[in-house]
């Protein structure tokens, strides 16, 4: 929050150049993906100064978790990045499983990978839709994205009971097995998805207006990206080949053959970030095909009591979420409640470089650079 309310009078500048126009692209703005505010100073159309303001959706998620048992704060992780509740659950389950010895059965591991990759599809398809919507296409790509997202959300509802707030992962496996017929419906969806992706790419990837609007806008160099802790598709668009599914190989990702798209690092602009997400969707489909092919039968959760007391220890579990590295840092003190519960939010840390990328660009560029970073305010403000 800025200290004094920024004065909305036209700043009186000496000399004859035009005065700076100070706009607060405020919490209530169509293209800030939630309650996020940017205090922007404009010289004509060019952005001279940009200051992000957070905190509108802050509900102190971490203090809540300190007063509840490990299991009770699992449904709250859905509300972090409310687009990808499955991957939030998995990160939290992964961190907690490091505190207690529990053996996750095979079927649960396969289902975890399937749910995570379906969530990645949902996130990337909707992000590309919102990104092009910021560019000005009146909702058509977004509606196609939502049409595909509906199908996947129906699968989530039939498996976990809720479309977005799934609360489906448990420490040592999953809450309940998928109903029969679910795997066939998922196979059918995964087989039809590449056809939709081809149509989506034909609509967007060679469109001259998108090419000229996004190329060369919001350049992020490789060194700044690594130093600023950028992770996820944004980092790979800036030329660093760093994907936690390959680096940590958590879960059973090492059994699947898939590729990680990245660039050679000389541009790293909005177009790269947009294209990396389009290509990652194809890789997720490849993983889903392999996982759905050889998923075994078996029980769904390991032997662990619902409310457990882990030995005093620290654990930092992290996964490759659709937005970047989502990490949970738990400190256990022997009681049923975590002593400290910390979420490493990829959206917030990816915003560190927002100002560096937007300065010098136009106001229209600032909107699409924010769109290309892909933030969700539930995770930024926690």
């Amino acid at each position, binding site marked *: 929050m800025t200290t004094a309310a920024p004065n*909305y009078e036209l700043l009186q500048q000496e000399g004859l150049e035009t005065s700076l*126009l100070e*706009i607060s692209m405020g919490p209530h*703005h*169509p*293209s800030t993906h939630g309650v996020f505010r940017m205090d922007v100073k*404009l010289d004509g*159309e060019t952005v001279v100064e940009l200051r992000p303001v957070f905190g509108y959706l802050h509900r102190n998620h971490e203090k809540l978790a300190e007063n509840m048992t490990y299991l009770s704060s699992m449904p709250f992780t859905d509300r972090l990045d409310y687009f990808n509740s499955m991957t939030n659950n998995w990160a939290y389950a992964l961190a907690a499983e490091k505190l207690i010895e529990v053996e996750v059965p095979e079927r649960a591991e396969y289902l975890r990978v399937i749910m995570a990759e379906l969530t990645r599809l949902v996130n990337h398809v909707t992000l590309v839709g919102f990104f*092009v*919507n*910021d*560019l*000005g*296409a*009146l*909702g*058509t790509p977004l*509606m*196609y994205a939502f*049409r595909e997202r509906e199908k996947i959300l129906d699968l989530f509802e039939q498996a976990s009971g809720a479309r977005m707030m799934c609360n489906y992962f448990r420490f040592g496996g999953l809450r309940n097995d998928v109903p029969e017929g679910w795997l066939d419906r998922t196979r059918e969806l995964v087989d039809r998805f590449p056809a939709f992706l081809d149509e989506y790419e034909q*609509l967007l*990837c*060679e*469109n*001259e*207006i*998108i*090419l*000229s*609007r996004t*190329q*060369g806008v919001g350049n992020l160099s490789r060194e700044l990206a690594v130093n600023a802790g950028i992770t996820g598709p944004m980092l790979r668009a800036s030329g660093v*080949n760093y*994907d936690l599914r*390959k680096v940590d190989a958590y879960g059973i990702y090492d059994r699947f053959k898939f*590729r*990680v*798209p*990245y*660039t*050679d690092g000389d*541009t790293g602009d909005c*177009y*790269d970030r947009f*294209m*990396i997400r389009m*290509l990652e969707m194809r890789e997720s489909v490849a993983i889903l095909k392999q996982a759905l092919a050889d998923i075994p039968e078996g029980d769904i959760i390991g032997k662990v009591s619902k409310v457990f007391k882990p030995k005093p220890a620290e654990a930092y579990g992290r996964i490759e979420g659709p937005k970047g590295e989502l990490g949970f840092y738990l400190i256990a003190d022997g009681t049923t409640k975590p002593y400290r519960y910390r979420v490493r939010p990829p959206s917030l840390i990816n915003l560190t470089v927002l100002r560096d990328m937007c300065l010098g660009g*136009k*106001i*229209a*560029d600032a*909107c699409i650079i924010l769109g290309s970073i892909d933030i969700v305010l539930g995770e930024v403000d926690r």
Partner: protein
Amino acid sequence: MSLELIKDILLATVPLLVIFPSLFAFTTWMERKALARIQNRIGPNKIGIPCTRIGLFGLGQPAADGIKMIFKEDIVPRGADKLFHLLAPILALIPAMLILCFLPLEFPWGKFMSGQVQAFLLDSAVIFFFAISGLATLAIFMAGWASRNKYSLLGGMRAVAQMVSYEIPLVLSAVVVVMMAGSLNAKEIADVQTGFNWFVLTPWGLAAFIVFFVAALAETNRSPFDLPEAESEIIAGYFTEYSGFKFALFFLGEYIAMFAISGLAVTLFLGAGDGPFLAVAPWLSVVWFIAKIFGLIAVMIWLRGTLPRLRVDQLMAFAWKFLLPLSIFNILLAGMSHHVTVAYPGTTAQVVTWTVSLVGMYVMAKGLDKISRSTAKPREYLYAE
């Protein structure tokens, strides 16, 4: 004051004031239905015959919107310039309605059956058209300035810059047709094109039509050029602070301007009112005219459903560095092909000039495109195992 004169004027102008606003209502419905279908939605289908459940494909939706707009509260910001805040929507509507009269539409009743006397059978109809359609720029600027709101100020500035710089390609591409038709009078231009030799079927006519259509899109702030009302960047641009009926007036103004400009495009390029079966029923010319206008508007809606928006500086560069040189080159081509066909009558010269002008036009367009947008092309990506 001879009553005869008053009757003639009323007979000419009243149908315009009645037909086109109702066409406006139909177009809003058509736009929402078409956009919905493009996005695999249904679009409005609930409001049909009032107080019943019959949906009638939502045809009652424009009426409902109109009534809603009338009863919506009309909020005027405290710092706003009351007088100009009120005047802006009216000034946006007047030029749009005025230029409708210059279109060579012969309504089939009364003395005009024979079509000689038409309300505004002016010699310099085309110049009047561009002069009065320039006034809309003023209205938008006045709206942007009077609302005392930063976003509408930005929208207003963008609108003025855009419309001023797109009026020149618009006029220049019309100059080609006026040159070839030899007259500024809309009626004579229409007569030259009767019998299916529309100007759009000639190569320089086609090029001029494309430039004219793109510039018309920018003039009426439609799809790829809807920067003044870019909702993702500057909320709703110049009409952020408008609500209630003033908001509806702006929309009426925008749609009627769309009708007028596509009407002119039809007159200049698509042979206004010319079509089959005219000998049988001469009143069909009005039907063909309005059908062609709706054809163009359908393309505008289709573009709105597909294309994203240009950035301000790209918009300017596109106008000055691409459309303007193209239209000037097109005038040269048209002149050259006219004199060659006059000098060497016969079909061989005709074919030669046509191929030369078509190829020349395309090469010129590709060259200009390469200069202005050299780097933007799809890229290849690396994959790590």
